[in-house]
């Protein structure tokens, strides 16, 4: 039985370093190749030694697919391709291909330049890695090789985020990456057709959350920011340079305009300008509204939001600052946080998910005394707010996607074990399909049952369809017969006669002849007629003919009558049939041996 095997190397019952291996129809695919933000040691990257102990991965993988540019989905890519070694194709969408190297370089700088780590990938490696990237367009069917094809769907998580369908023959797997089922201020909602994959690998970040309406959350967010500004506080919003940041900027920009607010809004990092430029050039990946109006007013040209300078940290008075990175684990956002944490008028709004081990995660869990490097502790007095703006599908959205795609199995990744367990139960109950949640390094295999595609001769098919009538009759299914010819890789189903002809074989006729003696005091023609009448009454549903040349035909069986030379009352019946009528012939010879019943005229 064909099997599909899935092994997460990362993101199995966890969020971070997404990396999932899929084996399907003899092909091996790596889905995402991310890093873990919560670790600084080996656990930062997926354990590629699972694939092979010694050396390069090229011969073990047919392709690598990256779902979007977040580092927990692509952060290990240069390490994998350049340091472990992989030269095959890496697929990602155009925006991902554009933005991914920038974030990788950023990440490299923080790790190597700031933390002084060695044995890390270099700028050149990022460049070399990106040369192996093949861009992917939405809905385009890309033929990786003769058998393996992939197709990207819109995922709506960040600019360029894609879900991907992997297909070999009639077997298929869909990997969602991270996705969002509700359109937001700059992106549209994820969509997939009813592609009925054998396996749907879905993220489950918000496996147990049902988020309230988007509008409410936005109002909430604006209210909190506004209140804080009113009382003279500073608001820190840690974000990643691309993605959520643009959505919140659009939100604040329109709010500032409407309320005529004067407090400055800053956006840190030199990336901003560039980031917004990417959004302008890839406007076709944003939502309907932005796409429609971009000629008149480009939503990514902000009037109220200005670039931030480090010296502004100590400026008096209220301000709103977007600073990177989003989980307060390093960089400017952490620096600002340290400065502002002590003042209860200030506020930090965490607009996205924080992985374990980061400061973001700690303060969200209510920790108010943080141990910093150098044994100092930091007391957090500022308000800490969590706003789920992170564009992941919630439980409702995940169920909705399952309903859209109609998979035969579901496999959960990118979530916490306990929450996954709950969702798994819900999925199995609601859809009556199997749901898996393997840990890292654990393999799930499901057997598939693919149908065998065969070329049927049109003659045979048409004959069958004509006989069967336009609608199938469930009570009387018609059986069709044919010969399947298997030659090299082709499978052809033809009628038996055609098969003989095509294979250049002679037909071998197997015939039987049987003489039956019968006592019947009538003339030969009368006897024959009596036989005809008798058979008519016994054999319902058969073609029986009394032919003028003195024979009776039952289907293709010939019956002849002659009188015995010695006794005219003894008739000799001659039955002759071919192998194709064997059952009937055998039946008739036995039946006629019993004689004709009385009372037949």
């Amino acid at each position: 039985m064909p099997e599909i095997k899935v092994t997460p190397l990362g993101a199995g019952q966890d969020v971070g370093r997404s990396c999932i291996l899929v084996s399907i129809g003899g092909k091996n695919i790596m889905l995402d190749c991310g890093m873990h933000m919560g670790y600084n040691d080996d656990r930062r990257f997926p354990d590629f030694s699972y694939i092979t102990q010694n050396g390069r991965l090229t011969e073990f993988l047919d392709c690598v697919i990256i779902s979007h540019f977040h580092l927990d989905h692509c952060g290990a890519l240069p390490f994998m391709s350049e340091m472990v070694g992989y030269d095959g194709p890496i697929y990602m969408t155009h925006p991902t291909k554009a933005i991914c190297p920038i974030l990788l370089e950023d990440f490299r700088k923080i790790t190597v330049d700031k933390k002084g780590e060695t044995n890390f990938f270099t700028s050149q490696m990022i460049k070399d890695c990106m040369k192996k990237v093949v861009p992917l367009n939405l809905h385009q069917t890309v033929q990786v090789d003769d058998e393996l094809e992939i197709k990207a769907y819109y995922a709506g998580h960040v600019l360029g985020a894609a879900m991907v369908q992997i297909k070999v023959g009639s077997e298929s797997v869909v990997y969602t990456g991270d996705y969002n089922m509700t359109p937001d201020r700059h992106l549209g909602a994820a969509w997939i057709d009813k592609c009925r994959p054998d396996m749907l690998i879905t993220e489950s970040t918000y496996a147990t959350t049902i988020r309230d309406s988007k509008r409410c959350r936005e109002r909430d967010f604006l209210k909190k920011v506004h209140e804080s500004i009113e009382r003279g506080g500073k608001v820190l919003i840690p974000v990643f340079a691309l993605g959520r940041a643009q959505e919140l900027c659009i939100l604040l920009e329109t709010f500032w305009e409407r309320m005529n607010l004067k407090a400055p809004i800053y956006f840190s990092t030199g990336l901003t300008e560039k980031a917004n430029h990417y959004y302008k050039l890839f406007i076709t990946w944003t939502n309907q509204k932005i796409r429609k109006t971009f000629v008149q007013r480009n939503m990514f040209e902000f009037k109220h939001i200005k670039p931030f300078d480090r010296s502004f940290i100590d400026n008096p008075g209220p301000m709103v600052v977007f600073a990177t990175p989003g989980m307060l684990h390093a960089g400017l956002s952490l620096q600002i946080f340290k400065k502002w944490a002590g003042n209860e008028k200030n506020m930090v709004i965490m607009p996205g998910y924080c992985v374990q081990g980061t400061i973001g995660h700690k303060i969200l869990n209510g920790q108010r005394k943080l141990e910093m490097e150098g044994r100092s502790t930091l007391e957090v007095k500022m308000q800490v707010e969590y706003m789920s703006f992170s564009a992941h599908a919630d439980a409702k959205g995940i169920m909705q996607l399952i309903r859209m795609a109609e998979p035969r199995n579901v496999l959960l990744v990118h979530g916490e074990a306990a929450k996954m367990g709950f969702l798994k139960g819900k999925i199995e109950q609601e859809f009556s399909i199997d749901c898996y949640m393997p840990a890292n390094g654990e393999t799930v295999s499901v057997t598939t049952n693919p149908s065998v595609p065969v070329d049927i001769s049109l003659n045979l098919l048409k004959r069958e369809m004509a006989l069967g009538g336009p609608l199938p009759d469930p009570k009387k299914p018609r059986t069709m017969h044919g010969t399947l010819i298997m030659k090299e890789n082709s499978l052809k189903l033809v009628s038996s006669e055609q098969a003989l002809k095509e294979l250049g074989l002679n037909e071998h006729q197997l015939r039987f002849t049987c003489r039956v003696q019968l006592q019947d005091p009538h003339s030969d023609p009368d006897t024959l007629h009596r036989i005809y009448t008798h058979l008519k009454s016994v054999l319902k549903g058969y073609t029986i003919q009394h032919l003028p040349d003195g024979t009776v035909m039952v289907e293709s069986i010939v019956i002849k009558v002659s009188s015995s030379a010695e006794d005219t009352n003894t008739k000799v019946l001659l039955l002759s049939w071919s192998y194709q009528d064997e059952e009937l012939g055998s039946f008739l010879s036995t039946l006629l041996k019993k004689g004709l019943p009385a009372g037949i005229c």
Partner: protein
Amino acid sequence: MKLYCLSGHPTLPCNVLKFKSTTIMLDCGLDTTSVLNFLPLPLVHSPRLSKLPGWVSKDGNINLEKELKECAKRVFVDSQPEFCLPEKELLDLSNIDVILISNYHCMMALPYITEHTGFTGTVYATEPTLQIGRLLMEELVNFMERVPKSQSATCWKNKEVQRMLPGPLKDVVDVWAWKRCYSMLEVNSALSKVQLVGYSQKVELFGAVQVSPLSSGYSLGSSNWIIQSHHEKVAYVSGSSLLTTHPQPMDQSSLKNSDVLILTGLTQMPTANPDGMLGEFCSNLAMTIRAGGNVLVPCYSSGVIYDLLECLYQFIESASLGTTPFYFISPVANSSLEFSQIFAEWLCHNKQSKVYLPEPPFPHAELIQTNKLKHYPSIHGDFSIEFRQPCVVFTGHPSLRFGDVVHFMELWGKSSLNTIIFTEPDFSYLDALAPYQPLAMKCVYCPIDTRLNFHQVSKLLKEVQPLHVVCPEQYTQPPLTQSHRSDLMLELQPPPMPYRRCSVLNLPFRRRYERVYILPELANSLVPSEVKPGISVATVSAVLHSKDNKHTLQSVSKPPPAPPSKKRKRVMEEPPVVQAPKPLLSGAVPLEAFLATLQKHGISEVKVEETADGHILHLQADDTLIQLEADGTHIVCDNNEPLRTTLRDLVLRFLQKL
């Protein structure tokens, strides 16, 4: 399989393909050359045009002075210009399931089809095709509605009257298929029926047919289409280019192995080299400006203009035109320039890599930023304030019958310092200029048509090897004006099947196979046996299910076992239920081996007699005959059913079952 040809224009095709159970319209081109027969629509009152004399036949019998005006010995219709629509009477257009659009120039008749024929299907197009197509339609509507003309001339169309008119009006055909322009309302409604597709996306139509757009290299988002089932493949080639301009290169390999290739949209200027034309364009432009004249470039607002601007971007400095203002005037000028920058996925590799930097893919962004290129929605408003001469103006419509270009013709036509440079190949420049004669301005004709020429297409066809080629009849003979140029036509073996407007072609298909799926349970139950080295056969008895044009075969479910019959005696009297019919047999029964087998089964008293065709075996103990021949075996056996069945099975051992 049939092809209905609704347009006779080779580059603005409209064909309908009936393929399996689907009806597919291929493109929806609008023949706009009809507007050349009309008077231009001036934006501001033109005393010259309004003073043109009306036309009265020489004998004075026909007086159409209200409808027809005479200018420089030619007669023009004084009415809202009309376009020649695709044929609507050849087949019922409400049955069309889908319309496949290949590029934005080939969709301009869409509102006429989707809004006025009862069309209920879907239109497939790429995103750039939809967006830029929308702009071109919007522009057309805007051009027409800006200068409304209440008069609609119809009298001249009367057959009896038309016959009497001077040429070329006398000779135009299908005049009753000419219609006025649609409204924005109709455009929006038509375009709401478009479903977006990406290159190489496989779109299933009713489970019977799969269609897929391929990059054609001609314009942003332009595509050729593959229409195929599992065993038949039609390639539709329309407007393709092998030149490296801005669009993604043409995908040639996917066109391979098609049964039929429908070929339309070859270059209209087979003798003009686009690169040479571009050079001529630049030098004429520079010459005129240096002499203090203005340059007018009538053009569409998307397409070649991007390449012209790119060419000028490199040329401006070297030709010291840095201070010359370049104006692009169109109601959709801004949108067209903006849209061109956001379709990175659809651009050639060079341009694509620019957005990774991130930089706009086309250099006209820089021309705009540095104020060298300015764009305006029309000559009114800001333009009239900022207008400086000498200058270069890009504006439409290339037919010179409507749009802002009409104004510049009136303005600049009288001075020989000015030059008009034709770059669009769709209209004959002499015809375009006719209602402006006499004209003092210089005319330069450098049509730039990047579509395939005959040389390229014959090379392409050699490569992709279609079994049959269908093309407009114009491609099967040299152009009328160059009848000696046998290199300007398609010469193929077998010869291409030509079509013209209203042709109905039977496409030469031999459909022999169809795809059917054997369900796993049935597949596992099949018993293959090898009949020849490498060839195995298995007999299949199955139930066929056909749903949504997909066929599956599944095992015959066994009827529930009959309840044990009480009257055992009667069992034999029940006629046998027809089960699977016996397979056909093949092979021969070898005498020696068969005798040995008989021996093994205790049949030893066999007398063998040789005959002309084989042997007769006489089983003396049982008075039974077996006749063995190369292609048949005959068992004659009375009154001994057990023996007969034994012999039957022994014979079967030596034969193959099919």
